């Protein structure tokens, strides 16, 4: 089974809020000096891929679009046991919307040859658009199953365990297929072995440009991008502490109700009982 996992490098979502900043020029998240990590659901997708490979054999390839430092997430996949990783880097890939991202990824997937399964996280850990996986399926004109937590081999294809809000459903599908992966207790990313980590550090990582994957750069220009991000704003929440006053509990309750009314949290018709 040939599997491709698409991994996005994002600013560590675990990083403290105070390190989050917006670059005033680009209106995008300032990635400088922040620790960059693989988007968490993408690591769940890696684990799903590794388990399938452990059972069925086959080739695992990790793909990422990003600057040279994004090879870090590819090395992470190699350290977990992936056979190959490819960085997609080209000036024309910058400022991608989900359509463009999916287009670039699908071109790279075509170049890799016949692929049975393409996995992505169900959404990215930063923008949470949840669109790239389905759009890759659209580009490649193949089926797509979203929010899967487990995949196993079944007769004539694959059995996919799809998470629903109050349960799950089991689907049978045959490759080629795109599956987007949600986290689950069964697909937490494994820990790398030191030896694989060392081997992954030595493994060459090819970089493919727009030309390498036969991209029609025109397509990025006309028609213009379907979605454009205008700005990103960090909302701040101020917290203040107020003392409820009053000699007796009743007085304190009255004071509290008055304050809640003043802030329109309680309607004026509400009577304290």
């Amino acid at each position: 089974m040939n599997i491709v996992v698409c991994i996005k490098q994002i600013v560590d979502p675990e990083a403290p809020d105070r390190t989050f900043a917006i670059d005033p020029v680009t209106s995008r998240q300032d990635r400088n000096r922040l620790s960059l990590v693989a988007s968490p659901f993408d690591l769940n997708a890696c684990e799903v891929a590794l388990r399938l490979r452990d059972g069925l054999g086959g080739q695992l390839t990790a793909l990422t679009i990003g600057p040279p430092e994004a090879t870090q997430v590819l090395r992470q996949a190699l350290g977990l046991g992936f056979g190959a990783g490819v960085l997609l880097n080209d000036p024309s890939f910058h400022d991608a919307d989900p359509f463009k991202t999916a287009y670039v990824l699908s071109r790279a997937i075509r170049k890799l040859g016949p692929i049975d399964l393409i996995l992505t996280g169900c959404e990215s850990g930063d923008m949470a658009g949840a669109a790239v996986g389905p759009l890759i399926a659209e580009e490649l004109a193949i089926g797509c199953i979203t929010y899967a937590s487990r995949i196993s081999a079944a007769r004539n294809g694959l059995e996919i365990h799809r998470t629903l809000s109050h349960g799950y459903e089991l689907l049978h599908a045959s490759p080629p297929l795109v599956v987007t992966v949600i986290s689950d207790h069964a697909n937490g990313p494994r820990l790398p072995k030191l030896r694989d980590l060392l081997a992954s550090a030595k493994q060459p990582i090819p970089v493919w440009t727009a030309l390498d994957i036969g991209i029609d750069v025109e397509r990025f220009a006309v028609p213009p991008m379907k979605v454009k991000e205008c700005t990103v704003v960090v909302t701040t929440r101020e917290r203040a502490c107020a003392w409820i006053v009053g000699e007796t509990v009743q007085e304190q309750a009255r004071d509290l109700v008055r304050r809640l009314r003043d802030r329109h949290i309680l309607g004026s018709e509400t009577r304290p009982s």
Partner: protein
Amino acid sequence: MTDHDYRDIRSAVARLCAGFPGPYWRGLDRERAYPTEFVRALTEAGYLASLIPEAYGGAGLPLSAAVAILEEIHAQGCNAAACHAQMYVMATILRHGGDEQKQRWLPEIAAGRLRLQAFAVTEPTSGTDTGALATFARRDGDGYAITGQKIWTSRAEHSDLMLLLARTSPKDANAKHTEGLSVFVVDLREAVGHGLTIRPVRTMMNHATTEIFLDGVRVPAANRIGEEGQGFRYILSGMNAERILIAAECIGDARWFIAKAASYAKERVVFGRPIGRNQGVQFPIARAHAACEAAALMVDKAAALFETGAPCGAEANMAKLLAADAAWAAAECCVQTHGGFGFAEDFDIERKFRETRLYQVAPISTNLILSYLAEHVLGLPRSY
């Protein structure tokens, strides 16, 4: 690995450690229990075999990689003391063992199937004066019968093999007291119950240390490392690596304390402002940081010298001294910064504080390092 910082290894170690947060260690601390799951995770990932050459199934990494691994474990709030010796005790076999011994043990150690992490040198009556040790190995046919007592033999209950230093000729028969000592690999799986008794020693921190009683324990001659009578030299040659690695753990501890202290000082508001706005709170943290970074440079220097094979006794000892002091100063300022909360178990600080105190004493006490520097580096008269 090309980058000197071992960034990939560090982040992989940090990810592993994330699975063993404060409550895990607190629970063990309360029970004085061994961190079996943590040690298993490190073993399975291959970290404890990082220094074993590739020919024997290890990762064949230089000492600085082990420095990065241990430092990171401690900087993440975990504690490698339960297993760090698995990394370096094998060096005595690697450097001084015969081919048959290396083939017999090293691949099994590298695979994590054999634990060699107990190291029995110290005795109740010898203390720091290793030349005074009295445990005696009497030649007996094709083996030895060993009788005596060891103390502070850490991890003996969690080890399959134990490296033991014993006398093979009486103290007075040699020109120097450190002569006439030999190193043995004792197979604890066979010896326990056949003359060897292990008794745990409870200490102020969760450290699986023991005392060991030997009464005619039979050890085959094939388990003696190197030549008879040369044991002290063999043990000494492994000590530089041990000093450097323990120093790395101290740096990790120091970084953990400093990060905790700095973050708490920014958040704790008293008198209407963060306590970290007071210089009386800032300065000890800043000083601890400076001391930690300086000590880290000495650890790097000692490791780099070690890796080239150059003499590094002075640097390894200074690294241990400075790093242990930096960790202790950082621990002290971390408790102080946290005020009362520094004493609360849930903050993990009091636990780490107890744990890092050890490195002022073991594996070599601060005084002995100072007297080593005075005598061997500065040429002052020997004081003992």
